């Protein structure tokens, strides 16, 4: 059997997650030797049609054209991996979901009629079957290399699902919430970044989306008891993973609560 054929595809996104592959400077040439890069426009002018053994998909679906394009990529690909918060949860652009997208378009473009967009920014898994999701905004390049290498070795990729809190304990970072009263999404956010923010004296802001079995209500209650308003807590969940169900539901619950109070 020849080298596995790799395709890298972009939807609505900032390019940062596929850049993570080019940023893996020490591993890049080795990975490029182990696979046959068939489609990776950011890196290569050679673009070959499918089928692909491995497809890496970055970005969310936001246009009617992209909703069709992902179907073809799925048909062409054996193992489809979504990379990053846009692809796995709709990304920061999902802030428009539930808002008035037409009004958003009018705010940015003088002639919005030239441009076709869908009302919602949605994760790839809402459109096609996804074989593996790699979270993060941006993804962790070492996790990406682990995923590619494990596929090449024929085993399942291992990426931890525990919360950022555990990583702070491992690093020996003093808890910013307990010691300094700084609001932090670490208890409910999935590991992957190596708990950077608390080590820089700021609270986690949720780049990797909900950890497994997150207790959102408990975290919001704690934050509200510590003096935050429900609106502020709701806002903190409305960022790069706003459309991930656990974050979406809790921010909605808090927003409803704020409305009732007013």
């Amino acid at each position: 059997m020849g080298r596995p054929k790799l395709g890298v595809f972009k939807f609505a996104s900032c390019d940062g997650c596929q850049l993570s592959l080019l940023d893996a400077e020490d591993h890049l040439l080795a990975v490029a030797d182990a696979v046959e890069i068939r489609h990776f426009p950011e890196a290569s002018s050679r673009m070959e049609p499918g089928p692909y053994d491995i497809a890496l998909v970055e970005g969310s679906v936001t246009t009617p054209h992209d909703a069709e394009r992902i179907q073809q990529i799925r048909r062409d690909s054996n193992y489809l991996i979504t990379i990053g918060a846009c692809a796995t949860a709709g990304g920061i652009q999902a802030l428009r979901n539930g808002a008035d997208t037409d009004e958003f378009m009018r705010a940015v473009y003088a002639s919005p009629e030239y441009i076709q967009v869908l009302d919602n920014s949605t994760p790839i898994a809402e459109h096609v079957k996804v074989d593996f999701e790699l979270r993060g905004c941006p993804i962790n390049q070492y996790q990406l290399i682990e995923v590619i290498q494990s596929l090449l070795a024929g085993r399942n990729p291992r990426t931890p699902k525990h919360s950022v809190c555990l990583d702070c304990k491992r690093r020996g970072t003093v808890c910013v919430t307990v010691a300094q009263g700084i609001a932090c999404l670490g208890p409910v956010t999935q590991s992957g970044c190596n708990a950077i923010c608390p080590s820089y004296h700021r609270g986690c802001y949720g780049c990797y989306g909900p950890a497994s079995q997150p207790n959102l209500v408990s975290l919001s209650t704690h934050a509200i008891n510590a003096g935050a308003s429900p609106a502020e807590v709701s806002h903190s969940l409305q960022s790069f993973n706003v459309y991930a169900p656990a974050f979406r539901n809790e921010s909605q619950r808090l927003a409803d609560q704020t409305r009732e109070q007013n």
Partner: protein
Amino acid sequence: MGNRTIKVETMSRVEGEGGLYIRLSGDAVDEVRLEIYEPPRLFEALLRGRPLEDTPDITARICGICPVAYQMSSVHALEAALDITVSPEIRRLRRLLYCGEWIESHGLHMHLLHAPDFLGFDSGLEMAKQFPDEVNRGLRLKKHGNQLVELLGGRAIHPINVCVGGFYRLPKRKEFQKLIPDFEWGLGAAVAATRWVAGFDYPDFETDCEFISLSHPDEYPMNEGVMKTSSGDLIDVCRYEEEFEERQVPHSTALHAIRKSTGHPYLLGPLSRVNLNREKLSPTARKLADEVGLEPLCSNPHRAIIARGLEIVHAYEEALMILRDDQPQGKSREEYQYQAGEGMSATEAPRGTLFHRYVVDEAGKIVEACIIPPTSQNQAQIEADLKQWISHVISDDEQDTARKCENLVRAYDPCISCSTHFLKVKIERC
């Protein structure tokens, strides 16, 4: 010969996605369009109503290649709205952070995206088989840039340490010390890389565009300055929106920019910066510019790769000076009170001047946001240059013509994700 179109559906080795469409009647060019079909993400709209502190984290997500630029323009603009003056220490560290991004972004473009065009390869990865030393050197430079952004920003893509007023935490002196040996090697390597690219064969081609970049009396432009033009004007950043206009065109999700007073497009980026600020380059970069024979006002866009090399050399030299001499101390950020107001700022992203303007309210919320990225400002100039370039490269071999058009576009290092709003080459002869 009849009419025909040449079309590149998906341009490669550019950041983000778009295409190029060219319509010819005979050998005359009817129309050139850079088609930006990158889906719009509507950042200006989704910032409204959010706490102003979210802005550097959210605008970073406009572009994974130059997040630092978005963070810099946004914090400077918000600081202007809140009347915050940052300390000289914070100012110095912000320049150091920007040096990291320039090294990373220019290193990537020179070695993996642009150099393969001159040497006849489809990609940097393929080029590595024949030019392993050069590609590995490029990857090391890029890695140093990333390491510097990581040190100050917490991580290379979407850094987490930048905030309105300064940084969440100052770096430690010993973290600086660790980078010095690599940066000493890197300065020499960057000089060698610039000499290497300066030796490429350049097509004979000149554009008559207006070059524009920030300019500062004491330093090579990064975080502040006035807009300087090759026609001799100086424009205060506060007058940005009076002087330049973004227009929407049907074939692009990016907005096209022109200079209102001339009605003509203009060019931002490394070639403009070097053309207008050559005497402010670091001593090694300035000497190297003379040695490799870069013209005093270089009008050949293909030679922008040399300007990128010189800016990498400059960034290493300036970074080394700060890493060696600076002892980060004092407060990591300025405190501030909310007040209603408006603030604007332009800083030099790797691809050119990036303008931000924000209106904030007395509760610290964003009321209005306006972001003008460098690639959407360059798009109209790129199309104008392509029109000229086609007459140099037109042949019956449409693939070859399309490839040469794509080469020119790549020379500008367009960032389509940024412009949101950008590349396919398609040539049409009806």
